[in-house]
C-alpha cells in the first residue's frame, strides 16, 4: 500500500491562454508555493495530490495546455542542498510547525 507521507513535487505549466493560466496558478497556490512565474513547489500527501490533479484537470484545456508534475521524493528525506537558487530565492513553506 502507498505510504501516507508527504512528497515534494515540482509543478510547471505551459498554458497559452491567460485566463486558464491564472486559474491554474490560483489553484496551485492553495497547495504549495510559487517559486517561478510558472513553477510551483508543492509538498503534498497522497490525498492532497489527488485533489490537486482533479482541480487542475478541471481548469485546463487537455488538448492545448500542459502541466508537468515532477516527483522529487518524500519530504522527510529531502536534502536542502538539492534545492537552491541563483539570484533571488522564493520562500517555500517549511515542512514543520510554523511560528509567526
Amino acid at each position, binding site marked *: *500500500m502507498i505510504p501516507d507521507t508527504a512528497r515534494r513535487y515540482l509543478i510547471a505549466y505551459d498554458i497559452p491562454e491567460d485566463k486558464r493560466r491564472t486559474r491554474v496558478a490560483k489553484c496551485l497556490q492553495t497547495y504549495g508555493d510559487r517559486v517561478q512565474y510558472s513553477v510551483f513547489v508543492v509538498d503534498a500527501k497522497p490525498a492532497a495530490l489527488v485533489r490537486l490533479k482533479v482541480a487542475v484537470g478541471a481548469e485546463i484545456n487537455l488538448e492545448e495546455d500542459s502541466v508537468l508534475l515532477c516527483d522529487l521524493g518524500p519530504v522527510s528525506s529531502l536534502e536542502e542542498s538539492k534545492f537552491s537558487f541563483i539570484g533571488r530565492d522564493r520562500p517555500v513553506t517549511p515542512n514543520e510547525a510554523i511560528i509567526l
Partner: protein
Amino acid sequence: MSDHQATERGDAVTISLVAHHEFCPRRAWLEAAGERTDTRQMAVGVASHAATDDPSTGRRDIKRAVDVAHLGWSYTGRCDTIEVNPDGSLEVVEYKATPVRRRTDVTQPMRTQLALQVAALIDMGERVHAQYVYFTEHKRRVEVELSDIDFERARAAVEATRTCVESDTAPQPLEDDPKCTRCSHASVCLPDERKLASIKRRIVVADPDTQIVHLATPGSRAFVRSGRMIVATHGEEAASIPLERVQGVAVHGNVDLTGGLIRELLWRGLSIVWCTSTGRVVGDAASASGPNGSARALQYASAHSGRLDLAQEFVASKVSNQATFLRRNGNAPEAVARLRSFASQAADAPSVNELLGVEGAAAGLYFGSFGTMLRAPDFEFSTRSRRPAHDPVNAALNYAYALLLGDCIRAVRSCGLDPHAGFLHSSNRNKPALALDLAEEFRAPVADSAVVRALNNGELRSGDFQVNLAAVNLTDKGRKALIAAYERRVSTEFVHPTFDYSCSWRRAIEIQARLVLGVLDGTQDRYIGVRTR
C-alpha cells in the same frame, strides 16, 4: 441508544452504508458516526465520482446522480449513472475507482450495492435491463448478472446494517484481517491497538501532520486570500501559507483572525485554539461536523457517574513518567524510588479523592527535585508556582502546559469527544477537564522535557523573561523560542510502550484519546496510559 433516537435514525440506512457494512461492520459504524479520514483512497473515491455527482450534467438518455429509495425495505441511495434505453428500460452503471486493489474485480459490496439500486428502481416502478460496474482507472465496464440470491442477500444486508448502526455499542474491529491493510479508516479504527499489546504488523504509516501554525506576534492579523492564509503585521505581509498545508491554528495573545479565515478553517475541519500571551487557554473552535455524537453522550454519562479506572490510569502514568524523567535527567534517586511507589499507589487508589492526594504528594516530591535537572546557572527553581509564576522556570512550565493542553484539546475534538467532561478533573469548574486528564501522562515527557531542554541548551535565556513585580512572564521572543522547543519535542518520534511501534508524541496523544473513546463506547476493555521506560 434510546427508542426515540432509534426511530429517528431508523430510516437513515443508505446504500453506501450497506456497502461499507459488507466490507466491515465497524467501518459502517465509523462512517455513520461521521469519522472521516484524509487518505488517498477517500480522495480517489471522491474524485472518481465527481463526474457523476452533478445531476445537471445528465441528458435525456443518460441520467446522473439519481436519488432512489425502497419504501418496503426502507433504505435510500444514489445511482451514479442510469442509461435510458429507447424502449424505456434502464441500465444502471456504478462508478468505481480501485486505488488499492488495482484489479477490475466485482466484489461482494459492489454486487450488493447494485442489487439495492436495482431493487429500489424496480420498487419505484421502473424496468431494469442490465447493470454494470464501470472501473474509472481502467476505463472498463463489467456487466454484473444478478440473481434472486443476490437480492435476498442485499435485503438481509440492509437489515444487518440497520441493526449495526442503531446498536448501543460499536462493533469490535476485525482481528488480524488483511482487509484492514487497505481500509481507509484504519487510522481512526485502530484495529491492531485494541489488544493493548505489541503490534507485529504495521497497518498505517501514521506520520502525523505537524503543520500547526502558531500566531504569536502581537498585533498581527491573519486572513484568507486566494486559497492562502496570509499573516500581516502592521499592514505588512509577514507570511503566506497554502491552506492545504495548515493542520491546525494556535493563536497566542493579541492576534486577530478574520471571520472568513475562521470559517474556511472550520469548513476544512481544522481546529483553532486561542491562548493568552501568558499561556492560559482561552477557548477553541471546532467544526460542527465532528464525529461520534453518540459516544459523546456516553462520555457525559460516564463523567457524571465517574470512571475511577480511567482516573487511576491518568495519574499512575503521570507519576510514573515523572519518575522516569527525573531518573534520566536529574539527580535524586530517592525521590525517583518514592515516585515509583506513588505510581503503584495511584493505580490502586480506592477513590478519586485519594487519587488526588497521591497526585499532590507526588507533585510535591517531583518538583522538590526538579531543580536537579537544570544545568544553566541563570535559572533556579525552588517551588512550583502556577499563577503568577514567581520565576522564569515556572513561567516556562505554565506556557508549555498551555501548548500541551492545546494539543490535547485538538486530539479530543478530533475523535468527537468533548474536552469538558472529564474523569479526574472536575467538569464543573469551567475547565477542559478531559483534555486536562489526557495531558497528565504527557506533562513530564513532552512539556517538562521541552522546558528543561530549552533552558539547558540555552534556547531560553534570562533575557527572554520579563519581571513584573512578583510575576514573571515570557517576552515575545522567549515565547516563540519556547513554542519552537515544544514543537520539536512533540514531533519527535519515540517507541510507543504499549504498541512497540514508533510514532511522534503528537500522534501518541491522539492514539490515547482514541483509546479513551474505545473504553467509552465499549470496544476497549481498559485504558493503558503511555508510560515511558
